[in-house]
């Protein structure tokens, strides 16, 4: 349930970031995070597949 709600909040945030052309508001999300939370955030992002950022038709 919490996951679903976080997903929908995250989707709204992405839409707003794109509409405002401004991603600075993201910093607020981790401003109060302690070291342990920060480590967990990094560890979880590291597990994500970043390949969608690369394009198969790339010329270089």
């Amino acid at each position, binding site marked *: 349930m*919490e*996951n679903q709600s*976080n*997903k929908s*909040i*995250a*989707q709204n*945030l*992405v839409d707003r*970031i*794109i509409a405002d*052309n401004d*991603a*600075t*508001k*993201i*910093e607020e*999300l*981790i401003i*109060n*995070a302690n070291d342990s*939370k*920060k480590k*967990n*955030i*990094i560890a*979880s*992002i*590291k597990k*994500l597949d*970043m*390949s*969608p*950022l*690369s*394009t*198969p*038709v*790339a*010329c*270089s």
Partner: protein
Amino acid sequence: MEKNNATNNEFILDALRTTYPKDAEVLFKLCTHGLQQPLGVDHPQIIQDLIGTKLNQSEFKKIQVGYVMITAYYFLLDAVADGHLEDNLNSLYLTHFLTLACQKFDEVIFTNPKIDFKNFNSTFQQLVSENAEAIRLENKFSSNPFTFSEEEEYSSIVGRSNSSIILLELIASLSDRTNKYDVKEVLRDFAFFVQLGDDLADWRDDYKAHKYSSFLRELFSKHSRILTENELEEEIYLSNIFESRALKVIKGLENTIKKIEAIGEGNGNYLKLLIQNQIEKIKVLMTQVIEIKLHFNNV
């Protein structure tokens, strides 16, 4: 789709077997770069669609073979200049790729009266020089990890991938399209923003290989020093840098779509679709990153 891949693979491999029977398999492997099909095999279709033309099948196939060869040549040359060649002996194959590319392009140029071959050759040579200049520029960047200039970065990235401009020049000459500026701009912008996306996805590998991309150099120049891998992780994932960079790629790609639409109604639908899919995938990834931040903020 699978059938298309198989067909694409077969005719490229056949061309290599006919020209270089002993080296065909290894050359083909270098062309595919570990992917399902040879790099660049779709590009002639993308360019045709962008300028709104349809070449005859025989010319199209020759151009596809020639273009896959020139793409393989560009990749190999980049790796040689970069010092990241998997096997030093692979540099032997630069000549194989370049000669077969020229042979295939010549077969089209000399049989089609529409082409002013002197003019095409001069453009080709100019683009080859531009590519060399772009590789030199990238080398200069690598040895100065604290310098960052977006303008120079743009020149370096688009120059290193200007094989698509060679392709455009060739297909445009066959289709009587004299004004190519708008299509060139689309191809250059597309190459640039795709590279920015690659740099964000591959920052760790680039860092470990001391291949300092524009993304890494921008961070180093901000701190006036080379950061450690852990510092980079914190900088990229715990600030807004990841999202800002992804946003830059999305905005750049959205703008490229607008430029495609300005070329003409019905032009570039294939590339537009590829870019739209790409934007959606980046949005999903951005959502996942933000979701992680929200999750740990709530626990």
